[in-house]
């Protein structure tokens, strides 16, 4: 039985919207266990979003359209990114419209507007957060492109679907280029999604914040959308890593059996990825902010080594 690719696309967006909060909840649960605490329910992030959606928006008097528009833009762009990353299937009609460079650009748009919104109100914290975020972005984005290019060398395409397809058809992770690219990707993903050791998503200390400082002034449904988009971004980066480096089990055609099996593989891999993430976050303190340059510099280096080793060894 065949499934129409557009239906797969729809299913994938739905998975993104609802699995992202659950994944965030799962990460929190594992984190609590790793610290010897009782964990909140898996559905806690869902409840948080629902709570925020039902609250009023408190808007600063001098907020411009940028501030009000940004949450919708960030949310929309993140959903769009979910349309081109192969989550359960590589057979995505939207994937033909945008490749990995467009994906990086999509996240850059969201970041650009978030940084503007951070400065829009004029509070010291917002501007501070925007400045830090752009510093990190200027280092993370080139490294991200390099890491993805290292993978795309093997697949001879910058289309995500094509890349995943090639890797899933027997291109081994043991290839040095892929191993280097994976290492780089993990470092970048930690920085891009604002996790320890780069940023602390759970802190209340405004002076130490990066991403949170930019969105401190948001409330109500605006905050709900931003939080939701943040969970989706984390989900997408983890899925991107899984699809690009460990794609086994992903559906490669529109066969029903493959489509049905893919989510099961995905859940398993996400579960393990969360454990890996928590081990990193629990075992490390946050680094000094100026150390992030070294951190992302090494990510860039790994990505470059990946590319070089492709030409030399493969």
């Amino acid at each position: 039985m065949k499934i129409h690719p557009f239906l797969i696309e729809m299913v994938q967006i739905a998975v993104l919207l609802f699995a992202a909060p659950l994944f965030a909840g799962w990460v929190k649960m594992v984190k609590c266990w790793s610290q010897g605490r009782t964990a909140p329910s898996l559905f806690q992030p869902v409840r948080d979003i629902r709570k925020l959606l039902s609250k009023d928006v408190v808007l600063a008097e001098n907020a411009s359209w940028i501030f009000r528009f940004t949450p919708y833009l960030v949310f929309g762009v993140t959903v769009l990114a979910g349309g081109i990353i192969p989550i359960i299937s590589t057979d995505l009609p939207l994937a033909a419209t945008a490749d990995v460079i467009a994906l990086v650009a999509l996240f850059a748009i969201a970041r650009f507007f978030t940084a503007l919104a951070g400065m829009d109100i004029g509070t010291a914290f917002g501007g501070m957060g925007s400045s830090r975020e752009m510093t990190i972005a200027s280092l993370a984005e080139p490294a991200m492109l390099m890491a993805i290019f290292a993978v795309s060398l093997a697949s001879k395409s910058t289309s995500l679907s094509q890349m995943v397809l090639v890797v899933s058809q027997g291109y081994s992770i043991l290839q040095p280029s892929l191993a280097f690219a994976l290492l780089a990707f993990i470092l970048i993903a930690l920085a891009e999604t604002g996790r320890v050791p780069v940023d602390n998503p759970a802190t209340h200390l405004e002076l130490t914040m990066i991403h949170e400082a930019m969105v401190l002034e948001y409330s109500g449904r605006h905050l709900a959308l931003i939080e939701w988009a943040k969970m989706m971004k984390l989900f997408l980066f983890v899925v991107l890593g899984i699809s690009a480096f460990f794609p086994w089990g992903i559906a490669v055609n529109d066969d029903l059996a493959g489509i049905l099996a893919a989510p099961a593989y995905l859940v398993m891999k996400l579960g393990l990825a969360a454990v890996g993430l928590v081990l990193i976050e629990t075992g490390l303190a946050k680094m000094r902010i100026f150390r992030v340059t070294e951190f992302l510099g090494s990510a860039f280096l790994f990505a470059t080594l990946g590319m070089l080793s492709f030409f030399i060894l493969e």
Partner: protein
Amino acid sequence: MSRLKDIVVAALGKDVKPDDTLSPASVISLFIPREQFAEATKALKNEYALLAAEWATDETSFSRGFGIYACFRKEMEYLIVRTSAPVDDPTFPSLTKKFAAAFRFERQIQSLMGVTAIGNPDSRPWIKHEDWPADAWPLRKSFDASKPLPRVPGEYQWIRVKGEGIYEIPVGPVHAGIIEPGHFRFQAMGEDVINLEEKLGYVHKGIEKRFESLSWHEASRLAGRVSGDSTVAHSLAYCRAVEALTGSPVPDRAMWLRALFLERERIANHLGDLGAICNDVAFAFLLYQFSRLREIVLRANLKLFGHRLLMDRVVPGGVAANIDAAGIQAIHQELDWLAREFERLVLIYDENSSVEDRVRDTGVLKPEQARDLCVVGYVARASGLNLDCRIHQPFPPYDRISVNVPVLVSGDVHARAWVRVEEVRESMRIIREVLNTLPEGGIMNPLSDPGPDRAGFAAVEGWRGETLYWVQSGPKGEINRCMVRDPSSLNWLGLEQCIHGNIVPDFPVCNKSFNQSYSGHDL
């Protein structure tokens, strides 16, 4: 024979009189004519004495105008220097030029008592905010505390840095965490902090004024609430000051139990702080584990002594909680377990290089700065100052227990954390020693009659540092003045200095390593 006294006498000659009327047995007190107040200070500074406190009293009921007091400390002794100012000329020479730490004491005296330090370069109010009428001096006897004050417009003058790329970050007074209110104003360029200025006073409750309307016994409850986390230190310092004033003896067993309470408070708070420091560098694992240990200590307090924080367990004349053989056994067992768990967590703190990278060389308070600012407690001991009232003013039973005080010289966040680690270890040892030697007998003596116009002074090493109380009885034997000097009054100055050369995101962990009290400072 007192060395500090000799210094002052040698410098000033015959103008110095022993201050017999006010001198309690616990401390040496001198009266100096007002003109020579600063000169005496200079002599003390030259001999490396440190300023411990400066305060004023309204002594109009004794027809003495205002009394101005400065307390100095050097090695094993304290010296209180008194002078007085007439009501129609409430001024005295400032000590700020010799002791930087005096500038806030003097601003506080000006704001609350209306006695001006001539020569203090900073005339802005302190603790009293600018929306108070400038001539409302709540500590004066003539001030009517029952009437609400009108609010007046006013603006606080911040120290500002100017130049291209400089920006200002206002933080607080209301913070995101569950902490007390206080305002921090950063002048920064990029991430580098150029200057930090504190503004406190948001939790000013009029505690010193309130003392004057309470009986001696009621006041010990108030002292226990000056700063909730150091309730034992404050109520103990108050009780010891009152006992010095009245000359009341305290039963042996009560003294040993007081030491037990004080050390248990130290352990509980240091455990909490160690976790909080780690949490501020996003190492949450240790926060939850240290908090767990703290909670277990507090629950044992509740079970054994009836209060988690041991509030109101120290009372004038003795203590209000006793311990039996089963309780002693329980604490021994708890300590065995606690020591094991504590060492495991300390090992994690010590071995994790990512934590080490954040806490080493962060927020350095250099030993010379620490000395200039006269800081106390673990802040002083992390910056090379060997200060501990349990050693330099050993009240019983510490005169019979040898206390080993850790002193580090690096003055960074790690040093302040590590002093706490060593103190927890030492406190566990002290508790065992207290329990093994706990004498039998009663736990409470009645307080003698205070009598008019007398004063009592006490210094107690609380977990945060040296806590000073000075109480004075009025004409009818009531409380005329109760001076409270929480260690925070001095240590907040250190925080402003240690942040120079650091980056903005490192401030929270520096602040947490100080962990000073807002309530104890604002009073």
